[in-house]
């Protein structure tokens, strides 16, 4: 295994890249399973450092953002230098390879794949050469992983999508994608936490808001969570959507099977 490599992000960020190729070149060089493992390692280091920082072991670390095969440490250069931060993180790198991953949460989420919520399902069906029932069956068959978060508050990029469903983004992005839309592109699937522009192929809608300011924990996902989908009809979709008023959350996560980690 290659050693992780540090990269500067101005005077407020330090990126630790686990791909060993440098971020950017790893994309072609790393097989998907290695990529998933390196992403987990990077995320785990982030969690470890967050706990250390929260315990008051050192100051100046302002945020920790996991990426694909990398983790970004945001720091305040008035309080800590990048040299000091590198030294502290490096000390924990050794422990990282000995420590166990914390058990993940598994969210089982309902998706309505009805035509009115799935403007691109027909297009996807023709592109991947399957029937719509087969696309839905494959989309609901796998346990997916929140590889990283980004783009909007609460949006997780879910990896582990069946190979048969890999396809490019739409050539022309939409200027408006409704909240809850389930998108499919590349080897990933996403749920839009808010109304937003977007270029993913829309194949369904999920009734439970990923981001709701009224909830005590407004954001549902964290990087590392597992997700699986099950199909619901439009009546069930409406019922579930209605049950989410006033910050109510009609579901709770299960503890994921440790074997998957």
């Amino acid at each position: 295994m290659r050693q992780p490599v540090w990269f500067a992000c101005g005077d407020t960020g330090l990126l630790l890249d686990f791909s060993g190729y440098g971020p950017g070149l790893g994309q072609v060089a790393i097989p998907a399973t290695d990529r998933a493992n390196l992403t987990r390692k990077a995320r785990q280091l982030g969690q470890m450092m967050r706990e250390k920082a929260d315990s008051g072991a050192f100051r100046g670390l302002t945020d920790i953002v996991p990426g694909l095969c990398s983790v970004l440490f945001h720091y305040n250069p008035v309080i800590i230098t990048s040299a000091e931060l590198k030294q502290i993180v490096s000390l924990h790198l050794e422990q990282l390879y000995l420590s166990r991953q914390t058990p993940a949460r598994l969210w089982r989420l309902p998706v309505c794949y009805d035509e009115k919520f799935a403007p691109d399902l027909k297009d996807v069906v023709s592109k991947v050469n399957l029937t719509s029932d087969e696309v839905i069956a494959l989309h609901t068959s796998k346990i997916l992983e929140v590889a990283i978060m980004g783009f909007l508050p609460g949006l997780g990029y879910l990896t582990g999508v069946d190979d048969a469903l890999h396809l490019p983004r739409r050539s022309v992005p939409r200027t408006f994608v409704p909240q809850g839309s389930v998108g499919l592109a590349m080897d990933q699937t996403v749920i839009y936490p808010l109304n937003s522009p977007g270029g993913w192929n829309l194949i369904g809608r999920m009734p439970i808001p990923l981001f709701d300011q009224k909830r005590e924990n407004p954001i549902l996902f964290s990087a590392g969570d597992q997700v699986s989908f099950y199909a619901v009809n439009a009546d069930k979709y409406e019922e579930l959507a209605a049950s989410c008023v006033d910050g109510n959350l009609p579901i709770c996560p299960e503890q994921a099977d440790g074997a998957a980690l």
Partner: protein
Amino acid sequence: MTMLTILTAGPYTSIQDKGRTGYQALGVPEGGAVDPDARITANWLVSQPPETAGFEIFMGGFSFETDTALAIALSGSLSDQLTITPAFGNARTEPAGQTIWLQPGDQVLVSPLRGSNLAFLSLSANFDLPPVFGSVGTSPNARIGGLDGGMLRAGDRLPLRAITPAPKQRQLQAECARLFEPRTIFRLVLGPQDFCFESDQIEKLTRSDWKLTTRMDRMGLRLSGPSLTHKINADILSDGIVKGAVQIPGDGQPIILMADHQTTGGYTKIASVISTDLPALTRLAAHRSIRFTIVSQAEAEQLARQKAALLSKVLPMEYY
């Protein structure tokens, strides 16, 4: 309840404070005033803690009415003036960079800015708005903060609390005012993906004039100039992003990422504007030309500490 009523919002005015720290792993942008120097100094002028929310005003054209007595101050564009029109009597003008007292019924106008593209107006009061992830600052793309997650509009009514009617009369000292002198050369630290470019492309970055385009907002600022070519392509495995990152997408034209940038992204970032220089970049209007020069990460950190020391000397309070 005491209120400020927005009379004219201007093209891009919003409520901003220090932003949200520690939530980027959930996809929540840091947000906050894009010009922290203006926020810190304007708050000092009204005897408020440096993180306090005020108005971030792009280009000016902003006016409001107060129904209560309070103090205000404008910073970030020190050569501009405010026009105060009382309910009865004649209007007067007041300069930026000092404490200004208002009476109930006063209307305050920030005319189109001439000295800068951006100003920050602080109040000796707090907005009585619900914080989201610890901040009332507005991130319009994430639709959080402010009144309803959006930019201000004429007719908006903003409730106030914790009004300090008689703060100290203050004026920005010359040493501090120098922070706001226009800058056209911006210092960069290379990375994290400078290795995705041949050395002649890095030279192109530092030897060319770059023009600010009209495509600028709280997320980013697009430059135009010679096209920068990638060794392979613009795509990378998505990684975390800092404010000031110089992103080079497929068209080779740089985008400098601002306070509301996405927390992670999949385009190469050739370098980052250092934190000391970034506020000055936000004050430049479209069509202005800038140049870049490269410093090391350690030099950039040293400059950040020097600026912090200067600010703590001239604004004697904890401001980070």
